């Protein structure tokens, strides 16, 4: 990785029903491990990890907020998605109600979150094909419907367990983010946090990941 100044940081939040595997997806991305025996998340957990985009010779660092899924804690979510540049709305492909919940999150984000937030609809537990309840065609149809309403959401399936598709999700999110603009400082990223300013404050971090 070239030791360039081409570095940008973005805030990403994970939302979705309890036990769909949000924490597992994050841990696969951050530590490349899967642990069946993970403690449940309460409040929100904070982690960071970077991806490189060789095409544009840049490193994108994610600050990740992994939230708790219990309905009771729903009202806390705005605390965490406020100022977020990207959101993963996660459902479990073996649980159709979790897909409904993910759709609700998309709706809420569109209403409440920063304009221009990059949203990815993530179907996790793709390794459990036999137990699938959420049909891929239904997902595509839903995304097209959103597109008709002028809402751009992209969708992807993955398995935190096997690792398949996880890195792709984060790479695709990174590609969809205004990386160039942030680096050049020409315009701030869509959301509130001033990543350009941040950059000047942490030269030691560049190229470290």
């Amino acid at each position, binding site marked *: 990785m070239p030791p360039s100044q081409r570095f940008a940081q973005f805030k990403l939040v994970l939302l979705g029903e309890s036990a769909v595997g949000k924490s597992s997806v994050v841990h696969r991305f951050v530590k490349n491990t899967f642990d069946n025996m993970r403690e449940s998340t309460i409040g929100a957990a*904070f982690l960071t990890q970077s991806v490189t985009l060789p095409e544009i010779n840049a490193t994108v660092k994610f600050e990740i907020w992994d939230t708790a899924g219990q309905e009771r804690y729903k009202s806390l979510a705005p605390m965490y998605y406020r100022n977020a540049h990207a959101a993963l709305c996660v459902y479990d492909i073996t649980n159709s109600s979790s897909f409904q919940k993910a759709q609700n999150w998309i709706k809420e984000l569109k209403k409440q979150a920063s304009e221009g937030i990059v949203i990815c609809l993530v179907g996790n537990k793709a390794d459990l094909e036999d137990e699938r309840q959420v049909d891929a065609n239904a997902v595509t149809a839903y995304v097209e419907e959103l597109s008709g309403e002028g809402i751009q959401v992209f969708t992807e399936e993955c398995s935190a367990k096997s690792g398949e598709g996880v890195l792709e999700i984060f790479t695709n999110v990174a590609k969809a983010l205004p990386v160039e603009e942030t680096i050049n400082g020409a315009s701030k990223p869509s959301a509130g946090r001033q990543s350009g300013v941040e950059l000047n404050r942490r030269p030691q971090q560049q190229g470290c990941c």
Partner: protein
Amino acid sequence: MNKDPHKSLFGDSIHNPSQLNHSLGSDVHEWSDETIEKVVSIRFGGDYNLFIRQLSRDITQKEQDIILLRDFYLRRERQFYKVCASHANLTHLEVDKLLDDIQQKDTVDDVLLDMISVAMKEPLAPTLKREPPTTISSNLAQQPDIEAHSSESERRGWLRGWIQSPNDLRYEWVRSTSSLHSGSRTPKGTEDAPIVPPLELVSMSQPGDSTILDPEELTNTDPYGFITENGSENPKRQPGDGSNFDARSSVSQVVNPIDSSYATLQEVGRRHDDEKQAIEARWNTFCNEVMKLRNERNQEETFVPTFGLKALELKTLDRQISFKEDSYLKRLQSLISKQGIPPGSRSKFWFELSGASNIRVPGEYNRLVELAKMHANDPSLIQSFNQIDLDLHRTMPSNVYFHNSTTSLPGPLHHRLKRILDAFVVLRSDIGYVQGMNKIVGNLLIADKRVTEEDTFWLFVSLIDEILPTYHGESYFSPSSLKHIRNAQTELAQVQFALLMPKLYAHLKQLDVQIEFITMNWWLLVFTDICNLMELWYRVIDNLLVSDKSEDFLKALSLGIFKHYEKKLLSLDNYDDVYVLMNRNATRNIGFRELMEITRELERKIGKMEKDRGKRWE
């Protein structure tokens, strides 16, 4: 069919828990007059006839249980002999002899221990005794006798007397499945032991509970049953300084006082022991003084709790004596913040200080557990039950009591956790289950495994009812309280933090750190995550129980943790590192005493600020 010979031979038994539906439990003879009155008035609307009828029903029921159980085993036995005769051509006598051999060498206990030793991937400690079943059953016959568990100085001191006084908190004796199944059902060596309820009933009342092993029997775990890395002590769970009790050395005395490892442990723990004795002496002096005064002042009253809920009895005492300085309540608070409650007496103190001894209605817990089973599909409760099930295997997965990593089966406390949470949902359907409760109950369950499941339940209920902050009369975990807790974080971050630690506040503000993101997690989990050293969390609860205002205490503790890291935090130059530092491992090397003293100091200041603010508003 289950292939495990022990299981198929001795069966999963035939218990039908619904038979215990409204049972009063098996220890009515030990209740205080007060408890009996309470039960009669609450459960039977004051009608003693109904109470007597229930007692008699219980007895009949128990007889029936025993008959059924005997019948079951007899039938199994007959079938077994028949199978042996037809398939192996063995006579009764031969079978008996073979069975005797098995029971000598291969008790269920040994099988379990072997399984655990495999789980640990290391042999069991050579000092661990492998004794024939008779010894196990004499352990079993041991009464809920705390004496054996407390140190020499406690033995002589006040604490012991108080602990042994009749009171509500009940300990269960070390129970073991082998005693039930190995045929040696009559406890031996019970000279001066009070009556024990029939073992069948005890085991039947708690389906799913297998042996609760003492952690000292496991080589690769810490005293609370957390698996330690590489068989060595896990630094994460090491006590943070010398001022606290060494839980290991005090617990180790429970197991085998005559064990040869005891001598070694004694040596290792000598430094701690000296300190421990000094601390216990201080406790004894204090408690003796209080008792003497109380006895002088309350001669006519029959039942007066020594400390009472939140130690409010001491407040009464202070008023009677009208001390201004160095009041008894203050002295207790200071003892607790400096030293914590001595682990051997902790459960007892908790039970009284939390108010659990007041709200506990004997037998009510069993009824709630049954109700939870009956209403498993109740639309108003099902969401809670489902969430509990989702969280059970995600609660303390690294603790052998909750999860057996070899078999991947749930450990014994897993089942207790489920029953307690389910019962709570039934008791408080307005609150339901909230994520985070699992961690609190989990911590309470491993605090002192001699405390019964029922009492752990009431302790949990009283923490929520009496101890944790309430908002407009709604309890901490009520749906409506969440926004108040959130507001408390904002206030904490923007008012108290800014005023009490202005330099650090300015620094964090400049880094764009959202302090409430950090503290919110701590609060929702009642600090179980950030204080993930068990001993530290127990110290937190000790202090919370005697705090003047629990919200101030939680605020002070939050600030105290920041204060502890002030230097380090001031050296960080971006918010990522701050969030990472203040995550769950932050208290790894924290000194308990130091943290508690900072916290107490901050608590005083916060209390004063609140008061001043109140005045200004008047």
